[in-house]
C-alpha cells in the first residue's frame, strides 16, 4: 500500500480514510477472525456507557428496503472493562483506536471521559446521537445548546482529540455542528441512524419495544451525503462522513462532499470484506486520476 491514502484527522494519522463504524464492528474481535483487520484506517468501538448495559429487550433488527432498522440499545461491557480488556486488544490490531462513548447524563459522560483518559486510544468519539436508549445520547444531540454543553464538559475532562458524532434527527444539523465546533470539538462525525418505525399489522403492534428504531444502510445515503456536504461548508474542523456507504464510489462521494475520512457500518454486515475492497478501490482511483494523495479530492464539490 502506497502513501496515497495516508490521512490525517484530528491530528491523528491513519493508513487510509476508511474506519469501521461504531456498533458494527464490536471491538474488532469477531471480524479479525475473518479479514485482515490491520489494513483498516481505524476502528470505532461499540458504543460504551459508564456502567455497561445488556441492551434492549424484544426484537432488535428489521431489514427494510435498502436498509435496516436496529434497536440494540447500546449493549456493552462498560467503560471499565473497555479500558482494561478491549482498548489494549484494539491497539494490537493496528488501526487507529477510537472509543465511542454514550451516556445517560452529563455526569455519566464526564466520568466516562475521565476513565478513558487511562485508556490507550487515539480519538474519543462522543455519541450524542444514539436513538435507541431512553434519555440516552440522542437527547443531548438534538439542540445546539445541549450539544455544545456536553461537548465542552467532555473536552475539559478528556486528554484525547474529540470527535462528536451527530444525529440527523434535527432541524438543522449545521447549527448543532457549529455549536460543537465552538464548544471545542476537534472533529464532527455524521450521521448516526435516522429515527424510523415499523408496525406488525397482524399483531397490531409496533415491531420494536421502544417503538422507534435507527435506520441505516444504503437507504439513507443520499440524505447523509447532503448533510456531510452542508456541515463541511460551515465548519473548519475535520468531518468524518458515514451513512450507507457500500463501495468505493460511495466512499469517494462522501470524501468529495467534504469528509476527510469515512466510516462504514451496515455494509460490513452484508459483506465483511467491504472496507478492504473500498481501500483497494480508493488506491486504484488515486492511480487512475493521478492523485498524490486521496485528500486532494476532499471537499471539491
Amino acid at each position, binding site marked *: 500500500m502506497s502513501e496515497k491514502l495516508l490521512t490525517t484527522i484530528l491530528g491523528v494519522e491513519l493508513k487510509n480514510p476508511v474506519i469501521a463504524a461504531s*456498533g*458494527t*464492528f*464490536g471491538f474488532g474481535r*469477531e*471480524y479479525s*477472525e*475473518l479479514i485482515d483487520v490491520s489494513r483498516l484506517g481505524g476502528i470505532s468501538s*461499540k458504543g460504551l456507557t459508564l456502567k455497561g448495559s*445488556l*441492551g434492549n*429487550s424484544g*426484537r*432488535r*433488527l*428489521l*431489514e427494510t*428496503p*435498502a*436498509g*435496516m432498522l*436496529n434497536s*440494540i440499545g447500546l*449493549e456493552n461491557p462498560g467503560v471499565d472493562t473497555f479500558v482494561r480488556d478491549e482498548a489494549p486488544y484494539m491497539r494490537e490490531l493496528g488501526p487507529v483506536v477510537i472509543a465511542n462513548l454514550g451516556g445517560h447524563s452529563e455526569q455519566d459522560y464526564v466520568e466516562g471521559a475521565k476513565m478513558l483518559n487511562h485508556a490507550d486510544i487515539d480519538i474519543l468519539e462522543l455519541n450524542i446521537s444514539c436513538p435507541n436508549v431512553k434519555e440516552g445520547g440522542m437527547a443531548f444531540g438534538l439542540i445546539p445548546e445541549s450539544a455544545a454543553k456536553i461537548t465542552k464538559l467532555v473536552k475539559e475532562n478528556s486528554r484525547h482529540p474529540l470527535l462528536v458524532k451527530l444525529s440527523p434527527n434535527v432541524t438543522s444539523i449545521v447549527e448543532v455542528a457549529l455549536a460543537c465546533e465552538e464548544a471545542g470539538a476537534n472533529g464532527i462525525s455524521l450521521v448516526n441512524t435516522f429515527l424510523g418505525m415499523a408496525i406488525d399489522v397482524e399483531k397490531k403492534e409496533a415491531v420494536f419495544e421502544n417503538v422507534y428504531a435507527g435506520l441505516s*444502510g*444504503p437507504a439513507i445515503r443520499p440524505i447523509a451525503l447532503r448533510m456531510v456536504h452542508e456541515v463541511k461548508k460551515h465548519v473548519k474542523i475535520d468531518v468524518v462522513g458515514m451513512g450507507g456507504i*457500500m463501495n468505493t464510489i460511495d466512499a469517494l462521494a462522501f470524501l468529495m462532499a467534504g469528509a476527510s475520512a469515512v466510516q462504514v457500518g*451496515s*455494509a*460490513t*454486515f*452484508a*459483506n*465483511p470484506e467491504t472496507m478492504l475492497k473500498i481501500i483497494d478501490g480508493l488506491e486504484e482511483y488515486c492511480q487512475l486520476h493521478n492523485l498524490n494523495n486521496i485528500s486532494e479530492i476532499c471537499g471539491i464539490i
Partner: protein
Amino acid sequence: MFTIVKNEMIAEDIYTLSLKNAPAGNAGQFFMLRVPGSADPFLGRPLSIFDYDEDRKIVSFLYQAKGPGTQLLASLMPGQKIELQGPYGNGFPMPDGSVTLIGGGIGIAPLHYLTKQLRRAKPTRHISVYLGFREEGYMVDSFKLYCDELHVDIGGQITANVGFSLGDTYFTCGPEPMMMAAAKAARKHRAKLYVSLESHMACGVGACLGCTCKTTQGANRRVCKDGPVFLAEEVYNV
C-alpha cells in the same frame, strides 16, 4: 462467489439450493447467502447446512421463500453466482449414545445433516427421527438413509409422540412452541436436549448484537456466535 447448481421448489414455498466448490461445515452451523450487489435486500440470509457432499464439495440448503430476501433467493437459476460467508455458529455436539431428533417444518434443515453426521460418527448407535409438518411433508425420504426409526406427523404435535428418557441425547429445531414443548418434556424426564434457535441477524458473526437471546440466568447470548445451538435449560425457562 459460488455457483448455483440447483435451486428447486420441492413443496409449496420450500426450496433446495445447492452450491458447488463450497467449504464444509458442521451440522448446526450456517452460512450467510447474499445475492451479489443487491441493495434491496442488502443483508445476507442465514441458512443452516442441510447437506454436504464431501466428494463433490456441494453444500445444500433447505429454505422457505417467506419474505423478500428468500423470495429473491428462490428466483435464482443454476449457473448464477452467489456470495457465501461462513460457516458460522457453534453447531451441534456429537454425543456417543442413542439420539433422538425432533424437527418441525423448515426446522428439519439442520437436523438432516446432523442425522448424517451422527450416523457416520457411530454407525451402530440408535437414531430416532421425528418430523412434524403443518400441511405436507418434504425431504422425509432422505432422512431414512441415516436413521433407525422415522416418525412423521402432519398437522399434529410431534413432540407428544416422543418418549424422553434419561441417558439419551435429544436435538430439536422448529417453531418456538414446539421447541418449548420439547424442552418441558425433556426437563420432566431429566433428558439432555439441545435446541437450535432462529433469530433475525445482520452480520452472523457476533458483531451487531441484533440476535441476542436471554439465558435463564439473565445473561445475553448471541444466537449467531454463541449459538445457534444451546442446551434447552440454558435458554428456555419451562
